[in-house]
């Protein structure tokens, strides 16, 4: 059997933020079709990993590398990574006053489509597609007529992230604590959205503090991040184990795993 190139290959990744070592040698391989959960207590480096993958400034890679679909991810500008199919659902989605969600997302989608050599969508086609995805995520149509994230509730912001993900159809989606701050109904809707995105040629990385989300989105692999390293990897059971024992076993016990 021919070996498939992994979608994402993180090798011995070391990252400094403001002179402090945050990631100290991450190894992570994600193949198409897989859902990985990266769990860990606050300060373990979860969000740093997400930001470095997406190309945010202010993170210094001191060692190691990342390949995305076989290419050097770290050499790409943030917008190139996005166009290549890497999507980050933000932990704190950003407000953009005066710019309607529709305008924002249509421009973004057309950039991605241009990159994939697909024809750009006009307003009508875009709206048809958007409506279909909004139904799926139980999002009020008015949401994309409003300015991006402005005045959105916490739940609306997170759902909007998942909606954008559904529209942009990335190869790799990284969800940075998308579950935090959601009540159970909103969590289910977000989980449904994520599940609907599961496909043999797409991978999803769920970054989360709690195992609660994993009741609804069942991961293929679970990794525990502690002190900037992956301390343990395993299957679904690892998350349940964590729920019982907490992160204490990994030398970081600042919070419990159960919601």
């Amino acid at each position: 059997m021919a070996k498939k190139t992994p979608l994402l290959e993180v090798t011995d990744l070391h990252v400094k933020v403001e002179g402090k070592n945050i990631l100290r040698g991450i190894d992570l391989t994600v193949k198409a079709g897989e859902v990985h959960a990266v769990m860990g207590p606050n300060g373990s480096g979860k969000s740093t990993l997400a930001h470095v993958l997406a190309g945010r400034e202010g993170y210094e890679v001191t060692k190691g590398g990342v390949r995305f679909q076989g290419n050097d991810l770290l050499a790409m500008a943030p917008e190139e990574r996005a166009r290549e199919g890497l999507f980050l659902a933000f932990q704190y989605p950003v407000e953009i006053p005066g710019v309607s969600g529709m305008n924002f997302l249509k421009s973004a989608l057309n950039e991605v489509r241009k990159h994939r050599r697909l024809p750009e969508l006009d307003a009508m086609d875009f709206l048809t597609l958007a409506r279909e995805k909004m139904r799926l995520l139980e999002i009020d149509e008015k949401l994309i007529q409003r300015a991006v994230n402005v005045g959105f509730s916490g739940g609306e912001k997170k759902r909007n992230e998942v909606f954008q993900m559904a529209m942009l159809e990335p190869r790799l989606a990284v969800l940075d604590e998308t579950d935090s701050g959601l009540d159970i109904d909103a969590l289910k809707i977000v989980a449904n959205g994520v599940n609907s995105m599961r496909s043999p040629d797409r991978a999803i990385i769920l970054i989360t503090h709690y195992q609660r989300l994993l009741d609804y989105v069942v991961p293929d692999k679970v990794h525990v991040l502690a002190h900037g390293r992956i301390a343990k990897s395993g299957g679904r059971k690892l998350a349940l184990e964590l729920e019982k024992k907490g992160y204490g076993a990994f030398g970081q016990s600042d919070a419990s795993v159960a919601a």
Partner: protein
Amino acid sequence: MAVSSDTVKTIESATGGDYKYGFVTDIDMDFAPRGLNEDIVRFISAKKDEPDWLLEWRLKSYRRWLTMTEPRWARVRYATIDYQDSYYYAAPKPKELLNSLDEVDPELLRTYEKLGIPLGEQKVLAGVAVDAVFDSVSVATTYKEKLAEEGIIFCSFSEAVQTQPELVRKYLGSVVPYSDNFYATLNSAVFSDGSFVYIPKGVRCPMELSTYFRINAENTGQFERTLIIADAGSYVSYLEGCTAPMRDENQLHAAVVELVALDDAQIKYSTVQNWYPGDKDGKGGIFNFVTKRGACRGVNSKISWTQIETGSAITWKYPSCILQGDNSVGEFYSVAVTNNHQQADTGTKMIHIGKNTRSTIITKGISAGKGQNTYRGQVKILPGATGARNYTQCDALLIGDECGGHTIPYIEVRNPTAHVEHEATTSKISDDQLFYCMQRGLSAEDAISMIVNGFCKQVLMELPMEFAVEAQKLLDISLEGSVG
């Protein structure tokens, strides 16, 4: 890596490479001798074969000007201007009054075509009548006959002096007196040409009227004068656009615009100002020192100013409304962009005199690079203006950390029934916003453009459709290279 192409683009635009109107037209010109004195004033007046009263008015203005000093209260800095080192009259030859476009120098037609303003009979802009002013004179006016069918007069100012002497004499200087301010007085002495519009009673002008100003000659000041009279119950929408070549010397543009709206009349005046802003080090560029004022003389009249100011090294202008007629309405919508070393001190004056007069001021100041952007506005409610209302909203957007946004409102209320509101905000395009957009696949430039357009939406909406798109593009160009 993509960085390289972005970097190149950034450098290109930062060095002024993106000012695509910076070319010079090589054409035979007729100049007045350099410098300014009474003979020059007489020379200009004679060139235009003006009646005595107008020459006297010019001379009166000139003598007044000699007694005045340049205003220095604006928040702008520049070296002293040597008013004797400039040409006050420059016109492409031949300078006779033109009867048809066939007589216009083909080089001029090509110039305007290059600027996106075709003047040839076959190619005129649909639905827009254009008066093209090149340096000191109007070179062509389109759709004149069609407008004449409605009784609308749209011609160059010089032509109006000959054909409409009563109207010109009645209204010239009636809104901006010859003694108004240093630059307006200078203009009154040496103004060369401009546009004249008269809309008769009850007529709704069927198309946009537009003047396209072009500075071409070197060391030349441009002093045009626009006079628009909307008679009772009429309506007109007027737009002006401006460009100039790239030169290392600063050039002075001191225009005067006077609007008069009689009973129930409405004037909508839009400006897309894109004079050469100077290079990235602040060398060269136009000094845009302009006096624009409208008088709502009649009851229920309305004057609405919309301006998109992206060019000029320095912008000093305050399009204002004098709300004399009861129930009259004044509006001012402005977007002012300062990038690199540009400076803008701009705003409006709303003088409420009549009862139940209303005014709205919405301004958006955008600063990038080392740009300095000041909103200066005056809202004055006089004792007789019972029930007057004003709403002012001034928003500033900063891009980068070397620029400045300033708001200087003056509010004077002398009637206790007046209602005046002032809101102001300052915001900055954050790294978080840029990263968020880029993570969705947008380039930094596109992200800024999107955020800026969102910021300006309230004002852009006020522009006539045909020009809103152009204005949006202009904003993009002006801010290109503003992210490192």
